[in-house]
């Protein structure tokens, strides 16, 4: 066991503060949102981005739902990291989700840290009066259903009576399923990708490791790090590192890094650093620059709470009874975080409800992250499904 693996580089502190200072396009709802936990969040702020143009019939709107650590910057340079949007391979002019045809909307989830109501935002009281401090750990627990209700308010505000499609991967896919279950007449087509109708014990277990790492960071201060001018950067980085492993596959890690050393051509048992370690440390340290620890806790909890079958009397089929929505369920062969078996559960429930469903398992060795990457079969499936759905739009 070597001891010299350097800790993840502590994040430069001001970065997250800079992120908080960025103005995000948003809508505010003074009436707020009644959450599943019983609290009314008032006002509700939903930060979002749009691409393409809404047609006169208002029939070409596609809502993209982002994953745990994603945000609304789908197809443009990210304002904090300066990197390309997280789904530019999928969304843009001439892409499978073609912004010359579709009006694409993506909102930062409730509980997030890119401008929507969430832990880093200013706390408000029951009347909506600002309290002069961030919510922090006092931000109420939210659910995937709460996130979807907030998105539905935004879609209504934008004057869109019915979405042509709702599309998302991972936690985004959970929102897609919730959309179809909650608003079956307000969404025509639904594409849940690399997701599940409930979070499994293994999924929850990995999240708990991340949460424990954050909580154990001396900079966390019980979640009141904003009061102390610190961030639990180290804990958040470890959470990200753990999670990142679950997004990849053994094959992908072997292909990318194998046992290669960063520090030299051969093992010396002294200060050796495997390339995979260095990669994970980089993933951890860049993540803390753009993400808030309390948001991470809030959103991972929302995913853990998610169980669409439980919301419908224990039967997933009930969630989609007589659903008019056209579904396309997609999984990836090497995804062990949201394995194909979980997508198959969704498909079987949809069949039991006699819903219109397509289901493809894409062969890929890239693990859960495959939905974000260059996968030609994924692109063909998405564009083909959208084309087929467009023929039946009503």
């Amino acid at each position, binding site marked *: 066991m070597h001891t010299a693996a350097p800790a993840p580089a502590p994040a430069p502190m001001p970065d997250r503060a800079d992120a908080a200072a960025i103005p995000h396009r948003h809508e505010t709802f003074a009436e707020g949102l009644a959450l599943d936990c019983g609290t009314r969040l008032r006002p509700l702020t939903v930060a979002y981005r749009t691409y393409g143009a809404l047609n006169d019939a208002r029939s070409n709107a596609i809502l993209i739902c982002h994953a745990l650590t994603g945000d609304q910057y789908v197809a443009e340079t990210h304002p904090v990291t300066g990197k390309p949007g997280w789904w530019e391979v999928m969304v843009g002019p001439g892409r499978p989700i073609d912004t010359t045809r579709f009006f694409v909307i993506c909102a930062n989830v409730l509980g997030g840290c890119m401008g929507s109501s969430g832990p880093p935002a200013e706390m408000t009281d029951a009347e909506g009066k600002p309290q002069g401090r961030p919510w922090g750990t006092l931000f109420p627990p939210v659910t995937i259903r709460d996130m979807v209700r907030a998105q539905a308010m935004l879609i209504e505000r934008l004057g869109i009576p019915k979405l042509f499609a709702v599309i998302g991967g991972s936690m985004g896919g959970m929102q897609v399923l919730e959309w179809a279950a909650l608003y079956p007449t307000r969404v025509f087509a639904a594409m849940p990708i690399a997701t599940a109708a409930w979070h499994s014990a293994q999924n929850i277990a990995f999240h708990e490791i991340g949460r424990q790492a954050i909580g154990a960071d001396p900079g966390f201060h019980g979640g009141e790090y904003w009061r102390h001018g610190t961030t639990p950067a180290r804990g958040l980085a470890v959470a990200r590192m753990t999670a990142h492993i679950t997004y990849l596959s053994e094959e992908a890690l072997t292909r990318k890094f194998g046992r290669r050393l960063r520090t030299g051509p051969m093992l010396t048992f002294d200060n050796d650093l495997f390339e995979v370690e260095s990669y994970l440390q980089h993933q951890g340290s860049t993540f803390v620059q753009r993400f808030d620890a309390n948001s991470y806790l809030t959103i991972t909890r929302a995913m853990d709470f998610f169980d669409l079958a439980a919301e419908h009397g224990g039967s997933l089929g009930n969630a989609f009874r007589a659903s008019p929505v056209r579904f396309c369920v997609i999984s990836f062969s090497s995804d062990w975080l949201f394995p194909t078996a979980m997508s198959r559960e969704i498909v079987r429930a949809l069949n039991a409800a006699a819903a*219109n469903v397509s*289901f493809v398992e894409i*062969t890929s060795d890239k693990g859960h992250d495959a939905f974000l990457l260059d996968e030609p*079969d994924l692109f063909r499936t998405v564009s083909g499904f959208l*084309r087929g759905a467009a023929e039946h739009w009503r």
Partner: protein
Amino acid sequence: MAEGLVALRTGRPLSDRLDLRLIAEMVAPRTRVLDIGCDDGALLEILVHEKGVDGRGIEIDMGKVTEAVAQGLSVIHADADTDLAFYPDDAFDYVILSRTLQATERPREVLAQMLRIGRRAIVSFPNFGHWRVRLALLTTGRMPRTRALDRPWYDTPNIHLCTISDFFALCAEEGYVVERWLGVDDQGRRTPWRKNRRLANLFAEQGLFLLRRR
């Protein structure tokens, strides 16, 4: 390749399978149809775009599923032997199984599932009673290889072969009503022996049946 059989929208050649035409003729317009073992969706394409059918497909070969979904068809990756159980009763007007029955693990159960989830079932299969099959076995003493059955015995997915007469017998045993049936030749055309079961059993390369529950 048969002439004229191209997809209306994509212009791709539909299939060299004229028997798909014969199946499509059995399906009433604007009904709900499930095509089991739908391959790349050639039949669904005809049904959806020419008959206004609400068509779904299931297929076990993932490459074919991707192909069909990329064509805009509603197709899922599933196994006829296990996944039909998840559909509710009477979910479809027709459940179609073309040239796949002989490749299922439990053909009798698959047929029963088809007539549970659908009001009618359309089934086609290669006829093992065809004279060439009989002659090949008789003269060579080896497992017959024909155009419809072109793989060696150790490498064939066709594990439950039957003749047209066998199929009539099974329908009688299970209490299914044969509403229509056809003998089909190797080009996928109706054979002139379609009125006579014994002749069809000898001369038809495929049998095509429209069944319903009693």
